[in-house]
């Protein structure tokens, strides 16, 4: 099986199995702050909740073990509080209270459109942010607080954070090859969008994860999992789901949708589409290029040449085995001296 060892080595390099101790501690401290301060702050504004009413749950890739190494560690922890959204129609205010509860000098706190973000810096550089999406639990129905601090565009959006977690965990946990393929796709995304900074320019992890789950077909051979083939087929499957319009060989528009399987059943790529049509075209073109390289890697005989194609997709962390010709000429059968 081609490049089996190299894919194993690559996955070992990029995978993050679990939170580090420092992350756990930061998260615990954050949780303590929220539990101890948020009820008081809310009480000052006529909202009564107790410490035990606050529920915080892991979200995102740490939950279903598809986190990969990155320059900035990104954690998602949902904060769920009991709240009547009719009495408190402005989610920006509640997000502001959450922000106040965690604002201390050790962290920089800001209100983002879907969450409150606590960022941590060392030597002037951000190394960790913990995103805290805030949910109102109103009579058993959950609503995500959306809207930037000063934006007029805000809403309590119906949501199902537990259902989303359960769905993704069910799809991914215990399916190791799929988990690895999701990590490869995220690594590809990080490589190809390393210089991108525009809002919603980058395909969201949740979208890539769901597309991977949809298009993945397990590939195994007599000597184990064939990650190269599984990766190529999954990426090809994602590409095939695009609907494009072309003129004179040029892609003019590209569209792909993936709706969440739970409330609010929204398209995870909608914000990307709304931001700029060029983002989806760029996404499609980059994906197509990756598929071409992966297909070449599958088709060439030489592991060296195949790995060079893979490097174009996954970057230089992917090992390239030596050229066979060099190996044959110079690497004689090994002998040992009697040391």
């Amino acid at each position, binding site marked *: 099986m081609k490049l089996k060892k190299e894919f194993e080595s690559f996955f070992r390099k990029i995978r993050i199995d*679990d939170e*580090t101790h*420092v992350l756990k501690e930061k998260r615990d401290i954050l949780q303590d702050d929220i539990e101890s301060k948020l009820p008081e702050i809310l009480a000052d504004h006529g909202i009564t909740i107790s410490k035990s009413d606050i529920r915080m749950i892991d979200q995102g890739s740490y939950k279903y073990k598809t986190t990969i190494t*990155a320059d900035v560690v990104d954690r998602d922890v949902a904060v769920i509080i009991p709240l009547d959204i009719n009495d408190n129609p402005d989610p920006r205010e509640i997000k502001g209270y959450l922000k106040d509860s965690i604002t201390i000098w050790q962290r920089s706190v800001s209100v983002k459109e879907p969450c409150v973000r606590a960022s941590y810096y060392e030597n002037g550089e951000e190394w960790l942010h913990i995103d805290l999406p805030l949910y109102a639990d109103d009579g058993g129905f959950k609503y995500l607080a959306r809207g930037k601090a000063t934006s007029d565009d805000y809403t309590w959006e119906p949501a199902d954070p537990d259902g989303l977690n359960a769905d993704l965990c069910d799809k991914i946990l215990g399916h190791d090859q799929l988990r690895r393929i999701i990590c490869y796709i995220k690594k590809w995304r990080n490589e190809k969008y390393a210089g991108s900074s525009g809002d919603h320019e980058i395909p969201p992890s949740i979208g890539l994860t769901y597309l991977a789950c949809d298009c993945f077909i397990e590939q195994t051979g007599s000597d184990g999992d064939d990650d190269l083939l599984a990766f190529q087929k999954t990426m090809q499957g994602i590409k095939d789901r695009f609907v494009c319009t072309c003129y004179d060989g040029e892609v003019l528009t590209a569209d792909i949708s993936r709706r969440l399987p739970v409330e609010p059943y929204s398209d995870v790529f909608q914000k990307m589409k709304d931001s700029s049509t060029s983002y989806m075209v760029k996404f499609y073109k980059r994906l197509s290029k990756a598929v071409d390289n992966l297909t070449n890697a599958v088709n060439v005989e030489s592991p060296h040449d195949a790995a060079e194609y893979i490097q174009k997709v996954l970057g*230089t962390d992917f090992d390239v085995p030596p050229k066979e010709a060099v190996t044959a000429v110079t690497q*004689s059968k090994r002998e040992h001296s009697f040391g």
Partner: protein
Amino acid sequence: MTAREILESYEEISIESQTGDDFFVFRLYGKTFLLITPNKDDFSSRPRIYLYNDAGFDFPHVLLYDEEVKENTLIPEGTYRSVCLYEPESIVFSVISYEDKLFDAIERLIELLTMSKAEREKEFQKEFMYYWNCGLAGRNAIVFLCQEDNFSKFVLYSNKQDTRFVEEGIVLSDINYRNKGERKWSERVDIEAYYIPVLDNRGILPPYRGRPWTTHNVKDIVYGKQIEHISFDTYQCLKTTQVSTRNMVLVFGMKGEQASITFAVMIKCNNNTRNTRRTILEKIREDAVAVEPIKTKREDYTFLSNIIGNDIGLRGKRALLIGAGSLGSYVAFEIIKNGVSNIKIYDDDILSNENLLRWAYGGLGVGRNKAEHISLLLNIMHPEIKAEGIPKSIDEKELANEVKNFDLVIVTIGNSDTQLKFNRMLNNIGCNIPVLYTWIEAGGEFSHILYVDYSKPGCYECLFTNESGEYVNNRASIAPEIVESNMIRNGCGGTRAAYGTAVLLRTTATLLTTFQKIISGELQGSTLIDITPNSAMNSLTPFPMEACSCCGH
């Protein structure tokens, strides 16, 4: 092709100077290199490449040592650092043409210089201990571990050159030795030391030029932001273990590609908190002001056994060896060198000059008891070896008691009557450990090993029993007739068979293979092995014998 033509065939290379046909200074990727071509008159010769006048270049396989060249007519004056292009013995240069050697060397250099960050990290980790120890002076840390996976504390002992870091639980036999009344090793209480196993070694690189270790390196291991290098249990130990000394030594262990990597670092702490006991984690995070790498060597028996490729199955096993004659002496040393660190040897015989040439390590000990003398030599080999020599013949009663304390019995006395007695007794008590009987046939050409698993059919007595249940001479014998010609008779009890040492080596080697097969489960039940000058194979002699009055039914 000439060397010049080969260099010129690469677009990336520009030749700066040439001396004769053998010395080329060239530029590649902004660096200057010296190429010394292979000697055409020596077909085993290899090309050599040196980095020229570049002290700051930190790259895997560019050696750290500078070689100063002055007043040399062949190559420019300056500083050279050797570029290590070949793993030892990876290439048989004699079978490669002059041109291919040069092409290969240049390709290797280009590959080296174009490595990705991840590849460089991998290469640095491969040579971790070289970089760690390179250029370090001062006292060596000699580390003895009995395990690699869990946090632990060391007891420290020093002599004039070294400090031994001995994991709690390991007993070193030489730690109390005295020389003219002075202790060889003194326990150190001025500093505490701890072992920290690293589970994930990503990003952990040794210090090298321009990148010395600082407290950040240590903090990143125990308190990594993104990658968890240590286990939760280890982290908890760091959080709860209090240190009573101002400074401390941390010994990190991690799995390398081929062998375990172990390196020690002194954590120098400020004295603000000298009156309060601080945890290891607090000291690392808050008190550490500097780190000093310590030249480190790991020398515990397990590690030394691992790096020579020993079968791990024998490790920790306790062996009872009955007989310290010629074969027993070889077997004793070899099983110790193969992983059995605990052995007890019985023999009442005295080593004489006539024994020396077919006795392992025969140069010493004439006039001493063989069992005691072997034990002495084994204990000197490594301080974790526990060898005990009993200067007497073991009898059946003692053997019955001893088998309870061991994992393996090897009988190397070669006396059929005694072996038959032992065999019957071991069968009667239902011995539940492997027993290996060994003997050399008269004539000294053929030998045998009988592995007996007393829970299954087959025992030593089967070989002396025919199908009718009658006693016969050993049926395993290969030699067609009784050989008398090489018996040396020098009095009653002093008969010596002149069989040289080759048969001893053959039998010992087969015995080691047999151990491995027993432990791996490849040998299922009692097995007879015939050893000839040409082969060692399972015997065709009918075995077990159903009519055997000892084990038969």
